[in-house]
């Protein structure tokens, strides 16, 4: 019944808008009987000024967005060794974009205003100019060449993992809708695995090869702990559909593809504890908690539970559509010192001891 009423109401609203537009339409006809549907000098003038107004609107929205929502804590505080390099490239690209955007939008809208039509005016017959065209071909070529070269150096240095650094090997294992991490243990070699070896009765949930000696000391966890300033190389697997391991604070992302192993490596440089003390982050967390406190008031008033206080944590998110609960596929990441990591690792069960 409500559904039916809603449809009726929506229809009425649509009809009402339609009628209002019609009235507007009819009112216009009376004022200008000679209206041919083609813009007059008056139209050109009004719309010319509106073009300038619109230009100012574009500038205003740009400034508001940068000031209010340019999430600086996240954008300027990367927590990995390659992060600042990537952020630098980002800033350079943004500056170039900002300059080009400001100038071209100005020219476009200003010309639309300045050269608005008037009766009797004649446009300049100006069909071609090779010099001008050469200029705006060559300038983008130079700028882009710079960006491409810079970008490719950055990309190569991020993606080429140096195995000589002896990175800690960690497998990220994705499934609908959660993450697991598998540590390689003392030998730092991940045991062989395939989903065909999964044996839920024996609690071999990731399909490790039980006969592989390298697998015996592997450790499977539901939280990702990393050691600060120690390179880590992730080997990604998925058991069902595509997922994407996205770690925005570390400027890291790689898809997890069923049937193949993908990889991504980086070095975390800021511990969770340090990041929580970062003044930018403190401010952000405070802002978020104010919002949550407000929301909690509403919730409690409606008889619900108050939201928990938020404390900053690094996160691993799923960033490739993977099904119904895609929006809640996450894992906490904790970056800590070697001692803290070792203490945590001691509490975990090795694979050989975890089987039923």
């Amino acid at each position, binding site marked *: 019944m409500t559904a039916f009423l809603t449809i009726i109401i929506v229809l009425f609203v649509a009809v009402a808008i339609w009628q209002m537009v019609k009235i507007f*339409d009819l009112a216009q006809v009376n004022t200008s009987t000679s209206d041919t549907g083609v813009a007059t000098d008056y139209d050109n003038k009004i719309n010319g000024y509106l073009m300038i107004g619109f230009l100012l609107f574009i500038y205003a929205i740009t400034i508001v967005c940068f000031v209010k929502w340019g999430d600086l804590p996240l954008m300027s505080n990367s927590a990995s060794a390659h992060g600042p390099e990537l952020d630098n490239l*980002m800033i350079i690209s943004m500056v170039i974009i900002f300059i080009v955007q400001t100038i071209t939008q100005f020219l476009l*809208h200003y010309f639309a205003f300045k050269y608005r039509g008037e009766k009797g005016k004649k*446009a300049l017959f100006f069909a*071609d100019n090779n010099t001008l065209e050469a200029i705006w071909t060559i300038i*983008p070529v130079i700028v882009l060449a710079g960006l491409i070269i810079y970008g490719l150096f950055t990309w190569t240095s991020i993606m080429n993992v140096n195995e000589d650094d002896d990175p800690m090997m960690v497998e990220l294992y994705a499934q*609908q809708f959660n993450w697991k991490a598998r540590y390689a243990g003392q030998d730092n070699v991940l045991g062989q695995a395939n989903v065909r070896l999964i044996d839920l009765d024996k609690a071999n949930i990731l399909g490790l090869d039980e006969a592989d000696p390298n697998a015996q000391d592997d450790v499977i966890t539901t939280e990702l702990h990393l050691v600060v300033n120690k390179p880590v190389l992730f080997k990604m697997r998925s058991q069902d559909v595509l997922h994407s391991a996205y770690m925005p604070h570390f*400027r*890291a992302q790689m898809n997890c593809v069923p049937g193949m192993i993908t990889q991504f490596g980086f070095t975390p440089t800021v511990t969770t504890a340090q990041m929580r003390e970062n003044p930018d982050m403190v401010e952000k967390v405070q802002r978020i908690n104010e919002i949550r406190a407000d929301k909690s008031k509403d919730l409690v008033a409606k008889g619900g539970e108050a939201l928990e206080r938020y404390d900053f944590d690094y996160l691993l998110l799923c960033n490739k559509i993977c099904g119904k609960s895609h929006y809640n596929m996450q894992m906490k990441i904790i970056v800590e010192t070697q001692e803290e990591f070792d203490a945590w690792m001691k509490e975990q069960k090795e694979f050989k001891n975890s089987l039923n």
Partner: protein
Amino acid sequence: MSTHADTHAHDDDHGHHHKETFVTKYIFSQDHKMIAKQYLITGTIMGVIGVIMSLMFRMQIAWPEQPNVLFEALLGKWAPEGVMDADIYLALVTIHGTIMVFFVLTAGLSGTFSNLLIPLQIGARDMASGFLNMVSYWLFFLSSVIMVISLFVEAGPAAAGWTIYPPLSALPMAQGGSGMGMTLWLVSMAIFIASSLLGSLNYIVTVINLRTKGMSMTRLPLTIWAFFITAVIGVISFPVLLSAALLLIMDRSFGTSFFLSDIFIQGEVLHYQGGSPVLFEHLFWFLGHPEVYIVILPAMGLVSEIMASNSRKPIFGYRAMVASILAIAFLSTIVWGHHMFISGMNPFLGSVFTFTTLLIAIPSAVKAFNWITTIWKGNLQLNPAMLFSIGFVSTFITGGLTGIILGDSALDINVHDTYFVIAHFHLVMGISALYGMFAGIYHWYPKMFGRMLNKNLGYLHFWVTAICAYGVFFPMHFIGMAGLPRRYYTNSNFPLFDDLANVNVIITIFALIGGVFQLVYLYNFFSSMFFGKKTVQNPWRSTTLEWTAPVKHIHGNWEGEIPHVYRWSYDYSKPGHDDDFVPQNVPLKEGEEELQH
């Protein structure tokens, strides 16, 4: 060339021509002008569906998990108590994307304007094959109907994202929508591709063979160049999507393993072995990327034409404009990998695709600068079509510039699949192409329906749409840079993003206002068909051939002989002429030189 057309002329000598019935005139019409209108109306209906879907999921994002009577009314069992279900959210996102990209901005845009303008602007009686043209439309209609039917199947419509990456799209146990819904999606798309190919082949043959006397390739209006090259890209890339769809059907229904391997789901191992989802991504994006140019090139063509006509100035750099269309078309087929930087493909390939991708910025920049120079020192007639054209250039620049970030593999790592991507492609190909389409409709409405659209409603429509488009998509860049992934049903499980919740509310409010104001356009469109002011033959005082044809639609376009062409299509404000435009069928004056272009 003209001999061929002349035989047509003979067929179309009126009077003793067999009388057309309602069915042959309005339904199974073979006349390109009627087919264009059929495409436009069908595209409009699909567009309304697509936009309503987007408004629904925008409301869900802004006010997550809140009961909403609209959801209850429109989604039925998918919104128990008015709270949107997470599965239907993904389905809405998926079908919105599919409808807008393929049904509105490919078929609706190309189908309408290629059909309307190719014969009229090159001086032909009709398309090379009127019959194929009719078949092409009805296949499109059929695929639209199947797509709409897929919304009503028990387990829900396709919900794997418009890119339908397997295994999610291949396994019904991974997602409800991957059952019957996905089957219908694939069938609909296969038919759509057939329709698109028939249309494209027809456009190509017509442009090559049926140009009137004097209409050399270098005298073609830029619209025709754009439609022509668009059709060529379509013919090259759509078959690859068809093959991907067929292989996916094989995997889904016949147990092959093209895209699937080593899958353990719901407690059991599936038999698939040896396939790779990455292969599907390659096949999909081999169409998927050219597809965005299939969408944007016709809009570019329309805008070039409208800008020149309304600036009363020749388009600046005709040769460069044609060359950049060709360059974009060529590059568009070798950049698909930039959608796959972090798909697990070799990082070296990523480098190659970064290089080719950023090259596309060069012809795009040339086009943008040429448009700006076209309006410089013009005598701008700010008709609604012109406003939409200026709006097109504005959103094309704004959206195009962020492509420099996304096309750069290193930067893509952190913004891939976030709202930054949504903002980028909606501005550069969604909103821009839509503006191009609106510009085309406002400009050629008199040609299509013999009546003028109300210009004041047009102004209202443009300004509200323009503000809302920026209001929706500009802030989206920033929530994307803050790391918010796309296709999340709600963000409430991530306190990290709580301070972005108000941005999402603002975006949704802009979207709702913009969406509702499209009613102004719909009113204008449908009421002007019957009550609009009658138009004169050449209301915008343009040079191209369609305006030399009579207002009343006749089969064969021109009474008597088809016009001959003596000059290029951009003789606006040419010195030595009293009028500020010289139609293409006016012979050169004695001593007058055609511009060397």
